[in-house]
């Protein structure tokens, strides 16, 4: 089974985000790129499948500029066999991203495509499942556990609005994973050194015959207004009094 893991490099989410003064987007100068944290869970799941001899090859793929080779090399150090970057000047919107991803999935004869449930920069959470729709493959969203791997299917657990569902999903399939799925490993220093020498394969989107136009128009970006400063209360008494003054009451017991 060939497993393809789509990863999105993004500005370290622990760094406070700054909106450009003209509202055209997010300030990205000098930003350190990391792999979208939830995509790391997807990669970890794929590498574990390979370690259990349930996957033959783990390929990571990304669609973006050359600066994204760094995070792709990290993915190689974390256990991916190959890394592919579809070369574009800038990150793309979900529609062309999903189209390119579907194309690579078929070219690489993949049976399992894994992505994180959302990239924590734009928080759209659509690329993985759009790709599933384009391929016409089965899907499992919000996977928090891979319970069993059968020759033609997976048994998975996923977290829904009203509980946890276990489902048998036929292959080929697309999974979008939740951070609860696993704890990603750290790359060892020798693995990082070895990955430096490995190539990141570059694909030209023109060669795939896919138009890169988007249907979204990003008109403006605004920083969220900060909340007014709060009050540090001395003790339980003051907290109760202040909440009472705001109209909050305990239910009659």
């Amino acid at each position: 089974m060939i497993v393809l893991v789509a990863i999105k490099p993004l500005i370290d989410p622990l760094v406070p985000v700054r909106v450009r003064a003209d509202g055209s987007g997010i300030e990205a100068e000098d930003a350190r790129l990391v792999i979208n944290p939830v995509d790391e869970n997807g990669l970890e799941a794929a590498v574990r499948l390979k370690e259990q001899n349930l996957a033959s090859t783990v390929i990571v793929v990304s669609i973006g500029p050359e600066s994204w080779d760094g995070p792709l090399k990290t993915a190689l150090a974390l256990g991916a066999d190959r890394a592919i970057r579809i070369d574009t000047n800038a990150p793309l919107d979900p529609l062309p991203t999903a189209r390119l991803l579907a194309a690579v999935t078929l070219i690489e004869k993949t049976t399992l495509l894994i992505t994180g449930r959302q990239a924590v920069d734009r928080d759209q959470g659509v690329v993985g499942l759009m790709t599933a729709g384009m391929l016409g493959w089965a899907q499992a969203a919000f996977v928090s556990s891979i319970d069993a791997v059968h020759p033609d299917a997976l048994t998975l657990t996923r977290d829904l609005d009203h509980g946890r569902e276990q489902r048998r999903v036929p292959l080929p399939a697309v999974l979008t994973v939740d951070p609860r799925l696993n704890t990603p490993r750290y790359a060892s220093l020798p693995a990082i050194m070895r990955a430096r020498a490995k190539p990141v394969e570059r694909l030209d989107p023109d060669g795939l015959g896919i138009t890169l136009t988007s249907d979204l128009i990003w008109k403006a970006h605004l920083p969220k207004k900060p909340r007014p400063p709060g009050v540090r209360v001395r003790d339980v008494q003051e907290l109760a009094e202040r909440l009472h003054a705001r109209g909050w009451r305990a239910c009659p017991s």
Partner: protein
Amino acid sequence: MSILILVDATHADGHLEITARLIGAARALPGPITLFVIGEPEDPGIAPLARLEGVNAVRMVALEINGAVNAEELTERLVTLAAAFTHILAPANRFGAEILPRLGGRLGITPVTGVVEIDADGSLVRAMHAGNVLARVTTTAHPVLLTAHPWAFAAVGVGERAAPVEPEPKLMAMKGSTALGLTKAVRPEGMPGLSSARIVVAGGAGLEKGGDFAPVEELAKALGGAVGASRGAVDAGLAPAELQIGQTGLVLAPELYIGLGISGAVQHLAGIKDAGCIVSINIDPSAPLAAMADLALTADAREAVAAFIKTLSKLS
């Protein structure tokens, strides 16, 4: 112009409230509103949906296997309907986040997710970067696919007149993809569902030492609120995953939020930024939630809760 709103009525938790708010959102757009309701037609929770103000028609879809929505089959049904609508809306919960992107893939349309504002000109405002940035987006797609946060919109009322309910063919389980079982969330009788609660009491990893979630449950009961959790608490096994609030959990805006033993990681704060009043009880005064809170008490949450309930009860 005509609008289709998807309603997951397969479980009892708050679908009337969620739908009332999505209709509130859709009212910014011209055109009649149709509800596409997935559930059991005999369920007594279904009838009030048809009486929500502004609803022109209801399409009722039953499932072959009760409670197990098959995303692939549901999407194929929606593909056959999509051309008749200018907008297809779903709530920005896991149901909407699972269905609309697949539908988008089938139709070649990017869904606009996490919408908190709809303007008369059709432009949409959505939150991103863990709720720290608001982006204004328009789309050239037809139909427009979007998921909206119910809390960001005022609910319409339930009226006397019921819209006609047309039954649709059952949704069959897809060959191969089979729901094997559902472990349903149980919550104490009388406690509101988390997604629509006015008051939310959430617990974090700071409660791990005591080994249980009792302070959160007791305070929620005393206030008539719902129980929520941080990812730390879920990871520590103190609370089930469906109670997780945050960037990869539920994004909420209750009138009152109280965090017990929650330090406030970026991804958790993403889920509560729009709460009316934020209270933190935590031992660490430098924690991000304490810094953001409207009212912050530096104390061991497990120890402070009983005294707080007693004091508030005396005042009430």
